[in-house]
């Protein structure tokens, strides 16, 4: 049963990823990306990482897609069709991507993985304890660094999207 669910999910992911990078309508390609991200969340549910699947659904499918849709609506006419690359370039890039894919797959399939049979579930509290532990192997420092990074990115995004320097605004009003 799980096997067939995996094959359906993989099919959805790959087909919609191809549609997302080749579609000429901008908004449609964003929606195809949403399907890809939801399929990936389904994959996480399938291998029992519920917390990651929830993060994937809220941050990617909920947050980033809405952000991209907003930027598309702000800078495009909805009906506008995208400029497409030259056919020769598309063919060349496609062929080199297939070549790289072949290289990857031969490397993967010739390598012997020591797979451990297991069906244990990782709970959210395990992840939280690991993130906040300051003993050996704990992740408290990267956790704090990420929080500072998110704050800095938020302030930077607000200032850049505002456009003008803050001091110029006062000059305009005078």
């Amino acid at each position, binding site marked *: 049963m799980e096997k067939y669910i995996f094959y359906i999910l993989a099919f959805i992911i790959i087909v919609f990823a191809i549609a997302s*990078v080749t579609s000429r309508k901008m908004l449609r390609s964003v929606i195809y990306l949403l399907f*890809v991200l939801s399929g990936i969340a389904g994959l996480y549910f399938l291998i029992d990482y519920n917390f990651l699947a929830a*993060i*994937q659904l809220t941050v990617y499918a909920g947050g980033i897609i809405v952000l991209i849709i907003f*930027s598309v609506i702000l800078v495009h006419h909805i009906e506008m069709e995208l400029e497409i*690359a030259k056919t020769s370039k598309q063919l060349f890039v496609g062929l080199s991507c297939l070549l790289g894919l072949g290289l990857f797959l031969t490397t993967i399939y010739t390598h012997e993985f020591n797979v451990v049979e297991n069906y244990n579930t990782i709970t959210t509290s395990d992840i939280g304890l690991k993130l906040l532990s300051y003993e050996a192997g704990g992740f408290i420092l990267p956790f704090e660094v990420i929080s500072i990074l998110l704050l800095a990115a938020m302030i930077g*995004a607000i200032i850049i999207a505002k456009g003008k320097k803050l001091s110029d605004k006062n000059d305009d009003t005078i």
Partner: protein
Amino acid sequence: MISGISIYELLTVTSILFFIGIYGFITRKNLISILMSIELILNASVINFVIINKYLYPDMLQGVIFSIFIIAVAAAETALAVSIIINLYRQINSVEVKDTELMKY
């Protein structure tokens, strides 16, 4: 782990996803589409972290925690990139890559 599915099939899916992302990154001519292709590439790498953690080292948590960090960095990167794109559109009225010659504030 998924019963009946080996690690090879999962890694095949992520490799295909990664190269679809690279294809879009090179052939697209629009800044927002390039951003979306970067999302595909990052997602492929996150799935790889999770799968290798689950199949090879099931008692560890490193893969899960690193994928949470990757998702956080990707969210920050997308927010910044979208704000840069909106600012650029205000200045040159276009988001095509070939028009983006002006990088001075």
